[in-house]
């Protein structure tokens, strides 16, 4: 009899997730070669992650942002508003560059949705930045210093009635709603539903429905893209995404300044809030990856970088809940893919404390020889191809750097070639050189 999911060990769950990624449902490969390439690519990445055997060669997976748009001649504004152009550009990128995996077309995001909801947390092309620039976060204290208790007590309620109405102006009337958890029996029901009848609240729900319809339309295009890419032999690297609790609070709730002051002024509240959102961060990654049937969960890391915290602060405020999220994902058979922006030299000894062959660390400005030395026995590492080199360097420069990476970090497997930071307006020939050089020079003999 087959075991239920809950009865499987993390190891068995992981094998199931990789199996599901290797054999996607409802897919007709365009050719036997495409199917073969698809499976080889995933196996290559899997071998690099698990450290059980050396892959056939170093996998190469550039982490792209708006690059396909710039490459195909569409503006960031077009990439965010015109889904057909978005599709065309990312498809052209995948077919022309042939990376070992693509990451879908979700990154630019559906601008129409943001417009409908009057999103205040970001500026995007045509809305606060020029059509030729990428979207950018407008940091602020969207959650106030004295609101931790409300957040800790009921994060979902806090998001619905306090936080989201602040970052989406169209949802401001949600501040008039009552907690849904108040609806517990008949006499409590009518009164708690009254606010839903207000004109302004109904208009806000109207906006939410409209945004949902638009997001749905966009989502269909995303699915169609993944299907076409899969059938052509290019797996989607990502099953889902989540973040480290410290970044969740520091990036878009309290802001950099807010969370840094909280470490001094109300450390216990901050720690409590980090704990409160940890299970939610795990759930976010797990549910997405299980729905997608792919094990890798993307985690962009920000405020734990060298310089942003002392090691003492990192060990107190960042690492404990971050590690819980990593372990929560690993226990469900998933592979956290930590995308470490900035440097992480001072953290390497700390992050070593994880089970072997279960995570990917993609580094940006970290010393890769040191990373290999400290993490090489336990974790797959990648990244570090300098974004500066890809943007303004030469093909020769990219190859030289790539050679250095393959020779030192790629030694004996456990390495994925990738860019240190997200690729936007890089020189196409440089991105191509990174991929082609890796395919040629990165073969393990």
């Amino acid at each position: 009899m087959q075991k239920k999911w809950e009865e499987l060990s993390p190891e068995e769950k992981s094998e199931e997730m990789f199996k599901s990624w290797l054999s996607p449902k409802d897919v007709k490969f365009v050719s036997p070669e495409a199917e073969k390439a698809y499976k080889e690519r995933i196996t290559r990445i899997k071998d690099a992650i698990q450290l059980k055997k050396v892959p056939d060669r170093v996998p190469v997976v550039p982490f792209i942002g708006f690059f396909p748009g710039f490459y195909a001649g569409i503006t960031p504004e077009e990439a965010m508003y015109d889904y057909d152009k978005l599709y065309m550009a990312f498809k052209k990128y995948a077919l022309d560059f042939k990376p070992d995996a693509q990451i879908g077309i979700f990154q630019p995001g559906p601008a129409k949705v943001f417009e409908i909801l009057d999103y205040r947390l970001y500026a995007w092309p045509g809305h606060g930045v020029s059509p030729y620039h990428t979207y950018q976060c407008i940091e602020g204290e969207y959650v106030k210093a004295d609101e931790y208790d409300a957040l800790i007590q009921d994060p979902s309620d806090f998001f619905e009635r306090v936080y989201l109405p602040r970052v989406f102006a169209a949802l401001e009337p949600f501040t008039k709603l009552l907690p849904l958890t108040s609806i517990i029996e008949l006499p409590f029901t009518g009164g708690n539903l009254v606010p839903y009848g207000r004109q302004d609240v109904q208009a806000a729900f109207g906006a939410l429905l409209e945004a949902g319809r638009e997001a749905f339309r966009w989502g269909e295009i995303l699915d169609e893209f993944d299907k076409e890419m899969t059938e052509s032999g290019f797996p989607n690297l990502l099953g889902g995404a989540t973040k480290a609790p410290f970044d969740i609070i520091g990036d878009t709730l309290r802001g950099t300044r807010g969370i840094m002051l909280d470490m001094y002024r109300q450390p216990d509240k901050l720690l409590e809030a980090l704990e409160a959102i940890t299970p939610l961060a795990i759930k976010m990654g797990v549910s997405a990856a299980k729905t997608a049937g792919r094990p890798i969960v993307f985690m962009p890391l920000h405020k734990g970088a060298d310089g942003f915290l002392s090691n003492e602060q990192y060990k107190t405020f960042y690492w404990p809940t971050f590690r819980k999220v990593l372990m929560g994902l690993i226990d469900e058979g998933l592979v956290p893919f930590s995308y470490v922006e900035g440097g992480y030299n001072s953290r390497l000894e700390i992050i070593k404390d994880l089970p072997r062959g279960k995570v990917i660390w993609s580094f940006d400005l970290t010393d890769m020889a040191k990373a290999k030395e400290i993490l090489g026995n336990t974790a797959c590492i990648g990244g570090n191809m300098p974004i500066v080199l890809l943007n303004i360097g030469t093909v020769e420069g990219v190859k030289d750097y790539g050679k250095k990476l393959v020779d030192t970090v790629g030694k004996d497997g456990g390495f994925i070639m990738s860019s240190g930071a997200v690729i936007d307006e890089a020189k196409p020939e440089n991105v191509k050189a990174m991929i082609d050089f890796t395919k040629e020079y990165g073969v393990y003999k």
Partner: protein
Amino acid sequence: MSGDLVSVLADLKEKEALEIAQNRLAAGDDPLSILDDARRALETVGKRFENSEYFIPDLIYSGEILKEISDMVKPKLTRAAEVKRLGKVIMGTVAGDIHDIGKDIVVFMLDVNGFEVYDLGVDVTAQKFVDRIKETNAGIVGLSGFLTLAFDSMKETVAAITNAGLRDKVKIMIGGGQIDEEVRKYTRADAYGRDAMAGVSLAKEWVGSK
């Protein structure tokens, strides 16, 4: 509450620092001397940051305490502070980029280290930098940028300063995110700094102060 404001603030003891400032005010101490002590404490904070004893949160927190002390002291000021300034610096995040946290820290550290800083904000066009150089006669320009798209904006800004005939009148430093020596060459700036105190050191070097 006894204790030396300079060392207490440099150690980031917020409550104590505020108490000392309050007590000194109540005792009729010169408000300007309180502010001057606070500023000296921040110089120590900057040095500790340079020595990797302090990190970004410490800079932000010390700035916050300084602001609280300033707010407390300023209503009592009877005369304006006559601070001897080392030089003028124009700072801004370049066109297309709206990130301000890094830039704000540099502005703040330049200010407490004795520079007169003109903060032009974010998404600053090349023309605006040129106009402000002409208006202020500042000898130093700092260009900040977090996105890789900022490389081109920085390059264009330096070119605009050159085309306006001002290039030999100013020293230009760049910083933020991925900025390194390669980007410096690309943009034709004079120098780059990895962090706020590197910016302060460059500015001091350029005005001939150690």
